């Protein structure tokens, strides 16, 4: 690559690189830096230049080994991330397929409906589900079930030990899945729409069923998108906590079984103990796990093969 090409490359990539470095790389290194300080209560003036080595990591490991709630945090993270990821990717794919084969007059409002959770402000969205799953008679779900005489007393869906951890998991997976699924739907739908119509028409003329069109045309041609959605949603789920936090804070979901790792980091830094040093150590740990999982996902989805130059003459 000659200098001119390099300059053009830098010119086009520069702004994005600048944004990525400013908003992603620097905060990551800042977080790693804070994990080596005793930062608490945001006392930047006092603690920012105090180094305590690996003390926060030692504390984190100690807590992971002995805190009775940490086992639940780890299991919840695994279950929440994997199940919600499957819902977001496969659910998004199914919705995109359904809307692709629908009449556009129907598919557009249908997609709009699925986008509502994403368009609703997080606090409002969480408040809706707070009143839906509320453990008492003011909860909509309980009211409906009691009116239908399916239950005689209100049930604390996310709190009742008889339904833990499943109740708490169901709620946090459900509300996060509902938001995430629309993202996959939009990307896959756009990808399907970009496939030349002639291919579909030709397949139809040859007598291919809808299933065969999906299997042999739509899915193979959207592998890029599948990889992108999977990896993106994986990172997103590993670090998402906003709706879950509100439902835990409002005590609709059990604080132990409704707390994935990202929420543990947030609560440690901002609410329960305001121990930013420990939270930064936990956050660094999460980043490391995320990077490893991302690499594994790209390997499994054969990312390298997809970016290879096509073989043979065109």
């Amino acid at each position, binding site marked *: 690559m000659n200098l001119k090409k390099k300059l053009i490359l830098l*010119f086009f990539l520069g*702004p994005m690189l600048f944004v990525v470095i400013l908003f992603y790389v620097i905060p990551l290194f800042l977080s790693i830096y804070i994990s080596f300080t005793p930062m*608490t*209560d*945001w*006392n*930047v*003036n*006092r603690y920012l230049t105090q180094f305590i080595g690996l003390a926060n990591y*030692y*504390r984190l490991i*100690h*807590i992971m*080994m*002995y*805190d*009775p*709630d*940490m086992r639940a945090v780890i299991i919840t993270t695994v279950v929440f991330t994997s199940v919600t990821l499957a819902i977001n990717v496969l659910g998004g794919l199914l919705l995109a397929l359904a809307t692709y084969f629908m009449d556009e007059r129907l598919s557009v409002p249908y997609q709009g409906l699925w986008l509502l959770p994403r368009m609703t402000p997080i606090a409002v969205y969480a408040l809706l589900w707070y009143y839906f799953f*509320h*453990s*008492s008679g*003011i909860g909509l779900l309980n009211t409906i079930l009691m009116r239908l005489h399916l239950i005689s007393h209100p049930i*604390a869906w996310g*709190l*009742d*030990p008889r339904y*833990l951890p499943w109740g708490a998991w169901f709620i946090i997976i459900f509300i996060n899945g509902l938001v995430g699924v629309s993202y996959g739907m939009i990307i896959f739908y756009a990808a399907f729409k970009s496939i030349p119509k002639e291919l579909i028409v030709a397949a139809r003329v040859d007598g291919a069923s809808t299933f065969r069109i999906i299997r042999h045309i739509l899915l193979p041609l959207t592998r890029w998108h599948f990889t992108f959605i999977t990896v993106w949603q994986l990172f997103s789920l590993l670090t998402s906590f906003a709706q879950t936090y509100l439902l835990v804070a*409002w*005590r*609709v979901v*059990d*604080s*132990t079984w409704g707390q994935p790792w990202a929420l543990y980091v947030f609560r440690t830094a*901002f*609410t*329960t*103990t*305001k121990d930013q040093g420990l939270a930064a150590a936990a956050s660094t740990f999460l980043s490391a796990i995320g990077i490893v999982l991302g690499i594994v996902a790209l390997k499994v989805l054969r990312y390298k093969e997809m970016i290879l130059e096509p073989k043979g003459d065109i």
Partner: protein
Amino acid sequence: MAGKGLAIAAAIIIIAIIIGVAAYYMTQKPAPATITTTPPTTSSPSTTSTSSPSPTSSAAPAKPVLTGNFEKDVIAIGKYLESKGIHTVKFTVWATGDPNSVMRMYGLYQAAYDINQIWKKNGINVKIVMNKFWESSFKKLYDEFISAVPQGTNGDFFVNSYIYIANLASQGYILNINNYVEKYWDSVFKDFYPAIMNAAKYKGQYYAVPQDTEARPIYVRKDVAACMGWDISNLAQLVKEGKFTWHDMFKKAEEAVSKGCAKWGLIHRRGSAHPDLMQFIFAYGGKLYDPKTGKLVFDVPAVYKWFMTEYVFAQHKLLPKDMMSWSWAQQIHPTVVNNCKGSPTGCTLFFIGGTWHWTEWQTKAYYYDPTTKKLRPLTAEEEVKKFYYMLFPAGDPGDKPVTLSQPFMWMIAKNAGKDNPNYNQLKDVYHELAFLMVVDASKPVINAVHSAISGHLPVRRAAAALLKNETWINNLIHMKLNLCPTVMKAIAPIVQKTAKKINIEFLANVSYMLEYTHLAPSHPLYPKLAGFFADAINKVLMGEMTPKQAVNYMIQKIKADPQLSANVEIVGSIPTNWSFP
């Protein structure tokens, strides 16, 4: 090709514009951290080097030092500020509490007014301008304060629970006012109740001034008791003597529910265990702090008995299992003040409440009026008809009844005055002025007005005396108070609803409870430990853990955190020869 060249040229122009704008802003002087004040010297509050030179002359007054004489100190500070070219001083108060506790903000507005009047009378051209920020949750306000101080966006005054003093002081977020308090000891602080004054200390030094205190009575619905055929006329005395314990509470609660007189036997706070539920530990003879070692205490027998008491209540359906997730406005208060659907009597027999609830029920529309079929506040007369009140009973026979106070404090931020010119040069003077405002806001009349309209208890004897003064009470009821127009306007609707002889009698009737009061420890790690208690009691109520498991869970949580483990003594063991009820 031409199109490509055009695109590149356009991109270069856009980027050049962005860089140009960025460069322009970077070369500008930093703007003041917050809203500027009106004086002619408008420099950044934290940058003295950029400020315009202060007008000085050979006759300039010396830097003031507090003497203990309020008016003299106010005049000295006013003259000094004026000589430095300061004509407006801006302060912001951050306060929290129930809707009737507005004097936590307006007390300082009154102080600003009083000081402005003194300056005006003495021809000093300086004026204090106040701003306010209100947050109903005291914990939330604390969280916001903690994150705001390092950024310099916090309020200058912070009115919140004393439990935060230890942490705020140890982090250097609030001002050590020990020297100032000493100066004003004889003229002001000697009149304060010693126990409450002590709560303002951290490591032997004063960091705050008490604003109010309260007791946490158990409210008993009279109609439910009557339905049970239970004569409660002497109940408060029995509780006081330790003859009516939590074992009896359980029996009565069970009787109320089994006889169909109430749906619940007991209702209490939601969300956190501190402060209301901590009373159980003291009622069962336990403690939370060891003054000898300066460490927090996890008193296993007392905690176990507390957990067991609530566990048994919840298992017998006398207390909602999901009590900790109830909503204050939609569930707790309506359950306490209303009758259950279709029932002529109340929904609960007992409620672990606070003195401020007495006036809150008179201002907030929690009561469903069956005649008008609308929500409205209770009247004072209706409250007297509905509620009986008493101390938090002893746990076991032989234990003592208790209550728990959480005095609220006026705290002064370490950077108080930061929004004013020449801050670095004048910060000591701004701090002294802030302290004098707190001194003025602690005047008996302000303290007594706050108590009368919010159901809190006074922190000084002179305020308590005013609450017993018939003339003063009549003046309050008829709004004939010598307060500034802003304060009068703000409190008028509350006074109209709550300033009644019945309410002032209520305060007099509950004031004996302070003799039985306990305070939660003033320790930087107490809020963390209290957070664990909240999780544990929620698990106990929900039946997720037995009391024994919950105690062990707490011990594991404490031991798992090296910081907490080093600061908490775990004492005693689970009692084997004890049962509840």
